[in-house]
């Protein structure tokens, strides 16, 4: 039987080439860059610092705020600057993907702001952003239960495929981004667009989890390179 090869030559369960750099923004308390193929996300963490806007302050924990945005030059057709409905939804699900991992109760009355800029987009920007944000939070020294690691999976023809790239988003039967805490085996983000029986949907989620486990090692390695002498 001929082995299944994807448009870019990858195997079904293969991630795109990964680059993770820690501490890329000198001004930030923590930062990271994550690339998967042509998709590149940069995350910067500021805080814990005094909460802004102040009325959102909470007395017994820190408030995590996430801001996802795409650079105007990140796609073929220029992206209009400023928040869109899409970016606001992604900011929300990103926050909810990170919150389960962060010990927010350690920093009452403060705010932790995470800014995610997508400087180049070629599918999988929300998951690249979550990977970068999670490493940036760790880089900022914020106590966490685990790193959050994220990747999307789908199904092309009969194959469950990991880390959909560019053109694959148009041919996949579904697009399922997953964020995962590997040590706890807990899913912190799950979305799906598509049309698939429940059994197969489960397989797609499992495919994404396998990818998360690979990314987890890369994240830890990148953090060690900066912090362990």
């Amino acid at each position, binding site marked *: 039987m001929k082995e299944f090869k994807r448009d870019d030559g990858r195997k079904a369960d293969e991630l795109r080439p990964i680059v993770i750099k820690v501490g890329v923004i000198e001004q930030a308390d923590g930062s990271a860059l994550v690339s998967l193929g042509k998709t590149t996300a940069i995350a910067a963490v500021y805080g814990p610092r005094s909460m802004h806007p102040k009325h959102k302050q909470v007395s017994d924990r820190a408030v995590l705020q996430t801001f996802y945005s795409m650079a105007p030059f990140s796609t073929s057709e220029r992206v209009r600057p400023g928040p869109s*409905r*899409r970016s*606001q*939804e992604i*900011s*929300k*699900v990103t*926050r*909810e993907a990170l*919150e*389960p991992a962060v010990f927010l109760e350690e920093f009452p009355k403060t705010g932790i702001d995470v800014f995610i800029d997508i400087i180049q987009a070629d599918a999988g920007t929300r998951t690249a952003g979550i990977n970068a944000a999670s490493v940036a939070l760790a880089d900022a020294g914020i106590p966490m239960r685990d790193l959050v690691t994220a990747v999307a999976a789908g199904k092309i023809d009969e194959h469950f495929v990991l880390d959909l790239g560019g053109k694959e988003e148009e041919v996949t039967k579904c697009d*399922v981004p997953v964020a995962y*805490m590997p040590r*706890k*085996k*807990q*899913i*912190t*983000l*799950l*979305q*799906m*667009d*598509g*049309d*698939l*029986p*429940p059994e197969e*949907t*489960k397989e797609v*989620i*499992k495919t994404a*989890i396998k990818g998360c486990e690979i990314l987890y090692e890369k994240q830890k390695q990148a953090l060690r390179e900066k912090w362990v002498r």
Partner: protein
Amino acid sequence: MGKVIDMIIQKQFISSLASRKMRIDKRGQEEFRDITIEPGVIAKAEGSARVKIGKTEVIAGVKMNVGTPFPDRPDEGVLMIGAEFSPIASPDFEKGPPAEDAIELARVVDRGIRESGAIDVKKLCIKEKEKTWMVFVDIHILNHAGNLIDAAGLASIAALLTAKMPEYDEEAGTVNYEKKHKKLPMKFKPVPITVFKMSDSLFLDPNLEEEDVTSVSLTVTTKDDGNIVALQKGGSYSLSLEEIEKAFELSLKKGEEIRKLLEKHI
């Protein structure tokens, strides 16, 4: 202060009931509050439906217009779904542009209808690359008593299924809203069901008090053939793979039931 303490006590009470798989209004884990579906409540709209789930009340309205198709889909109709959390519906809703929750709700409902192919969008095209029908579904929350996504999703599909298309005069390029007879070309009935977790157990159809103690939820939209067409996790906590599998089962079963109920009303 007394009120704050009452709220804390109530939250603890609901959590402790949930840990024994019981609920404050004595419902079963998978039991919905009473559902009513009332199509055609807005005469001026092309389609509309009022859905009540317990005290939660939502109206969805369909309006149509003729416009230009998207360049990457030159032979298809255009679908737009929006939601407004009007301040009349809850002391927690504020005036102003749609906030995060309203945007998310509209996008989750949109995904279910779009991805399932519920509307046969190819049949909405009038002239390739030039003219097509645009379908706007607007969701208006009238009273927020919990489980808004399920109510909004049900109202939207009910409104679409009962919508009648206005007439289009190709020569004059005008839409005649007085003459409506043809139905919208509909193929499927996607239904979103939100499964939520309290005290490590899974439940359906939270009321407002239960939503306050909910740690995490998963909205699963299924269509007529049992396929899943959209997923959305919500809330600041996490889920295990086993819980997700269980949520699939629960929402598929309930989705089937609600589709039958929907068929009775259209």
